[in-house]
């Protein structure tokens, strides 16, 4: 499905938190949603899921979504939403019940549910051994993955993840991001990744939407934003990933324009480190 927003405005009380947002979300992309705290990122993803009322037009596959008189559209079931610290929402007595909860209420049979559990669990690197355990017996990283898996159980087309790695140790972080990437590839799903971690954004995204003070400053391929339009990030009060800062520093010192086409750290290191080494070797 193609999700299209046209001239969306959102007001909380007297305060307008989103101004004239127009965009189109296409299938199979990792789209990072970035901006300072209060820039409108969370409100934007809530509009997409149908959780807040708004003025403007929302189209699904070219068909307008009906709004009631207050500007509500009701939730869009094809979009899965993983809130911040989703493990706080775990409430069932076993992992199996937790994962089954949403589907049980859609009248799916136990066989179908168990079958789906066995496809979803490996995606987040969990084994079926944990199914009978109570969620509180799990480690922090495992709880987070159970919470994400319970959303994946509904087979969303689009997965919204709001700061999914907050509070995890570095290896759990990297593993979780890789699992999300694998889910995206395997299901041809779309990920909307709300994050403050510019290193992760540069590493994993296909596209980036940049928010500032309730406005959408741009929706770019990730390379365009970090390699060609990095001044926009500064305008929006965001720091550049360290790898991009390194690239810019070496460009400044050498006076050369270094040709890079990817903003992944390994690709930048591959271009920049030979220059640094050549410089360092002058010493001896």
């Amino acid at each position: 499905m193609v999700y299209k927003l046209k001239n969306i405005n959102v007001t909380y009380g007297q305060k307008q938190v989103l101004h004239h947002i127009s965009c189109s979300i296409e299938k199979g992309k990792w789209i990072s949603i970035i901006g300072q705290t209060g820039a409108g990122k969370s409100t934007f993803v809530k509009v997409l899921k149908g959780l807040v009322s708004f003025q403007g037009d929302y189209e699904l596959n070219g068909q307008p979504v009906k709004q009631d008189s207050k500007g509500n559209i009701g939730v869009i079931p094809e979009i899965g939403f993983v809130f911040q610290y989703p493990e706080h929402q775990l409430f069932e007595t076993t992992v199996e019940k937790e994962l089954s909860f949403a589907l049980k209420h859609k009248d799916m049979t136990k066989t179908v549910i168990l079958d789906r559990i066995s496809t979803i669990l490996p995606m987040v690197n969990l084994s079926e051994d944990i199914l009978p355990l109570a969620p509180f017996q799990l480690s922090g990283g495992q709880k987070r993955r159970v919470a994400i898996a319970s959303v994946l159980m509904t087979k969303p087309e689009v997965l919204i993840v709001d700061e999914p790695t907050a509070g995890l140790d570095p290896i759990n972080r990297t593993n979780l991001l890789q699992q999300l990437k694998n889910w995206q590839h395997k299901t041809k799903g779309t990920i909307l990744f709300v994050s403050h971690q510019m290193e992760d954004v540069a590493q994993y995204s296909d596209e980036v939407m940049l928010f500032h003070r309730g406005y959408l400053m741009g929706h770019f391929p990730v390379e365009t934003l970090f390699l060609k339009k990095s001044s926009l990030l500064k305008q929006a009060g965001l720091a550049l990933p360290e790898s991009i800062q390194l690239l810019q520093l070496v460009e400044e010192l050498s006076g050369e324009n270094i040709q890079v086409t990817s903003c992944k750290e390994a690709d930048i290191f591959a271009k920049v480190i030979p220059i640094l080494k050549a410089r360092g070797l002058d010493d001896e």
Partner: protein
Amino acid sequence: MLTFDHVYFYYKKEKPIIEDISFTIEKGEFVCIVGPNGCGKSTIAKLIDGLLMPKKGTIRIGNHHTKDPNDLMKIRQRVGFVFQNPEDQFITTSVLDEVIFGLENICVPREDMYNRALSALKVVNMEDYLDAMPHELSGGQKQRVAVAAIIAMQPEIIIFDEATSMLDPEGRNQILAIMHQLHSEGMTIIHITHHMEEVLQADRILLVAQGKIHFDGKPAPFFQTIPVENFQLEQPFAVRLHRLSGQAVALTADWKGAIRSQWSTN
């Protein structure tokens, strides 16, 4: 001075959380405690403050023992705690009240309260928000108020238990700057964190895993000798750059300064 002397802790005997940990932190040190999720870092913090009692061994702050109920009140005045989630901490309805609340609990004379609260709020740059209500503040601002509430109580040691992990980069940098400023004024800082960039700037690192201390020393040898991936950690950018450049770029948190100075000398 803070001393752990052969400390053991467990909830269930067969599942030890802390096993025979000993270390001493001197006044004025800046120590980072790192380790994987669930390694016992927060348990150590709670043991320091007497929120948990060791099953074996002793914990002393100066001459006070956490096990002695008469000492415990004194220890809690000397050790301040800043937690992960600023939302969990705010209990009053205004910034000023929040700082005053702590002072009431340690029976500061009423006439001193306002000045102590105000000067603490100045340290964290929140003096313009005395009457602000919690919902009007960002996460970073709330966390700064939490720090001010601790500073006002004039502790000797402040423990930051993943106090930067829920903040955006701006909020995190502000809290880090406050931590370093307090340290430069003589405060003992214990910083529990997963952010390896923050670790590079500490005086000393304690690596905790499976209830034991696996490293105790300075950041440079830590990253040079410890395979951090085995402990669910990763090398910060500056260390990756140092390694991959064949050490052409010196190992320091200020890698930009290192590159600049090298460029100008060559």
